[in-house]
């Protein structure tokens, strides 16, 4: 597990380059670390046999087939596709922010989205991808086919942070497109007035959609740890502000906490799962948060 965890560090994964490989590494590594298969309870129809691998639940060993073939085989079940998930990825310029030695938030979001997509598809869930900038920049409807994965990854690989963001508007637009009940997995830094975000998410909830919000941030954004006098330049608007972090830090942190609390409380009010993730968080932790949500959905 520690060895695998090492590879789940997003900074190390970034060196691999191949998003497909990264996604598989994340998902496989994560799943192998679990003692119990996440598939249990999701599927009831037998699909095929496969060779036993350490970590598989012994209950699923097909002893008859094992006796016939003299190989230890486990049964795999065909799962019912009852979940439609849409990965809503914020690709605005602010997502391009990275600290020294860190990966940008967008890159982290791409890894996470790719991993989630792989995981969803393995579960026979349908997964789609929506890219948000000032509006809905692109949209791939959810499908459950495994062949759908390359298309998703291709879209993810080519994402670059640019332009501003109106994430709330994007969510509202999405709610019009997808009538069927779905799980919206939001990956964004949510730099918009919390009331607007909550309003948009509430609208989704009003249409019986489930929402899981990953609030992606760089650790620097929480602390404002810089020294001396500097000019902060807004990545989206190019607006500049002269600032002495040492003087402004306390006030900034207070305001940030209030902003985050407003988001969390708003999500809680509308039964939306809210998770704040910093770019130094291991991807497996982020996946774990998703699976908890998935398990709750049944």
């Amino acid at each position, binding site marked *: 597990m520690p060895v695998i965890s090492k590879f789940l560090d997003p900074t190390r994964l970034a060196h691999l380059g191949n998003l497909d490989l990264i996604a598989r590494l994340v998902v496989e590594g994560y799943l192998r670390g679990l003692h119990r298969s996440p598939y249990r309870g999701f599927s009831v129809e037998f699909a095929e046999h496969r060779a036993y691998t350490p970590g598989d639940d012994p209950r699923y060993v097909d002893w008859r087939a094992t006796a016939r073939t003299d190989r230890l085989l486990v049964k795999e079940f065909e799962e019912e596709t009852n979940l439609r998930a849409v990965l809503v990825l914020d690709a605005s310029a602010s997502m391009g922010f990275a600290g020294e030695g860190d990966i940008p938030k967008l890159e982290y979001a791409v890894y996470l989205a790719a991993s989630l997509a792989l995981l969803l598809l393995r579960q026979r869930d349908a997964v789609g991808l929506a890219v948000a900038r000032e509006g809905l920049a692109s949209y791939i409807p959810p499908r459950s086919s495994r062949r759908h994965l390359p298309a998703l990854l291709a879209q993810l690989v080519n994402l670059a942070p640019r332009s501003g963001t109106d994430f709330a508007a994007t969510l509202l637009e999405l709610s019009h497109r997808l009538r069927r009940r779905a799980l919206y997995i939001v990956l964004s830094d949510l730099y918009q007035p919390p009331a607007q975000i909550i309003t948009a998410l509430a609208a989704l909830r009003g249409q019986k959609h489930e929402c899981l919000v990953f609030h992606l941030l760089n650790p620097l954004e929480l602390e404002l*740890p810089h020294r001396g006098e500097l000019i902060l330049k807004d990545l989206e608007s190019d607006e500049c502000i002269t600032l002495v972090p*040492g003087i402004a830090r306390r*006030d900034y942190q207070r305001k940030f906490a209030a902003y985050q609390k407003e988001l969390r409380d708003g999500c809680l009010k509308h039964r939306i799962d809210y998770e704040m993730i910093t770019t130094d968080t291991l991807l497996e932790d982020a996946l774990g948060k998703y699976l908890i949500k998935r398990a709750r959905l049944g």
Partner: protein
Amino acid sequence: MLEFLNPWMLLGLPLASLPFWLHLVRRRPKVTFPWPSLMLVREQTATRRLPTLSELLLLMLRALIILLLVLALALPLWRTDPGAPLTTWLVVDDSWRSSGYLNMLLASGDALADLLAAGYRLGLATTTGKVLIEPTDSPSVWRAGWSKLESTFYIPFWGKTLDRVVTRANDNPGGARIVLVGQPTAGDLSPMETGFTRETELWQVLPEPIPYRGTITSIEPAPGPVLADKLDIMVSGMAPPEAADLTLRMGGAIVARQTIRPAEQNFAVAFHLMRPSGGIKMSAQLGDFPDSPQTVRSAFIPPFRQMRVICWGDYAWVAAAALSALPQSPFATGSATTLPVDLSGIDLLVNLSADAIPPAEATRLVGYVRSGGKLLLMGRQTVPDGLPLSVSPVTISGMPIPKTDHPLGRRLGGVPLPDVVSAHELLPQGLTRPFLLAGNKAAGVTGTLGSGSFIYLALGEVSSIIDKPGFAALMFEAARYLADPAPLLSNHVGWRSPQGIVQEKPGFWGEGTDMTAINVDLMNYTPAIPDATTWQNAYGKAPQIYAWDDFLSRIKQGRPFSLQMILLIAVLTLLVGESLLANWLTKRRSG
């Protein structure tokens, strides 16, 4: 009033603006840092970069530190008496008159040292012409110099001393205050000698009288022949205010006692004792104050020793006979026709025909005298060729003394010399320059060669006076003086005269001294104290006169208060504050 000892340091005051300039010059360029969103920053109220109160305070602190440092280096003084000079010269009379009060002055050394402060300097000169301390503000230097102050047997040289002091005082940019400690006479303060100007600030301090118990100034063999079995001890000093016993001890045992009465003023008492076989310590005590160094004095009397005297040349046998004729003569005398080859071990050489000394002998005599040998020449005036004598008549009042017209000359000349003139009168003690005796047939010249070991007496034809009564005694005294001058040279107190013991210090007989009044003036010495008119005429103003204690308190009033230490302490305190504030600001900036 605030003054600065180093006012040119104030040129550094503009440096106080240095922190502000550095602040402006060294402002670091702002770094532009990309930030995802200014949504939460834009609303900040403390984001704008304005100098905070703390930063302004830090800048002002730094400026203040430089300001105070520059002021401290400029040596600021706060003076309640701004016009008074910062340098004070004490001119202390340490002549023989000072013995009564000098101890009291010495006890004030610490009090004077405590006065010293930055820029407030004291110098010390004495009337014997010494500059003991150049103006200093160092207490240790002052104490070291002050402890050297001692009473001397000299007369005061106010004029010459003050001339030196005034010369130095004029070198001080701020001038100097000159404090005369003692009582100069009108003659001492001649403007030509002292160099005083009307601008010179003069104080005069009259030392306060101290409890006076009388003083013993000397105990020594009395003038007169040194005899083998008799010892005359003379004790001299100043009489006590009340009658007191003068006790004489020989080796601890009391051998004589005499009452000294106040009326005697200065006293000199001779005790006639039996000479002990060897040297012995004699001590005298006046009154019952054994702890007072002024009332107790002792001296070591060396054992009697016959001196080896060789007389040669014409009348050598006469001289030898005269020197050995007296009972218990101190001389072991021999005679020769020519100067002996070996002069070692001879205490005295006597010759009565100096004009007959051949050049070769004269050359040897010069070497003998220069190596410390004693030579007595008596006879004609003619000085033998080759003797490098600088004997010349003393000029009195700028004119040679007429041998017969001068009152002293008449007095000496009117009476046969040997009858009247004793060696003590011919040879004033402590005489340091040629001296002329005038007479009808005799002119005596005493002179010094080197350290006073040579006497030349020109008495006219020896053959005409050699049979006169007293000539032998005269020669005896001269020989005794030469052979063992110590008793006479150290006796500055009195000498025997036909009228008895003259009790007075001889002082210094310089040019301008009225020789006829020597005895009278010295016996009734009353210095002429300059009055206000004298001061006014000479200098335009009289000095401010203080008693010693008043002087100490008065001079303390003029002491400037140095602000340098206060400023330096303030600088150190501000430095600590600056360091704390700077650290706090740095931590605050870096969060």
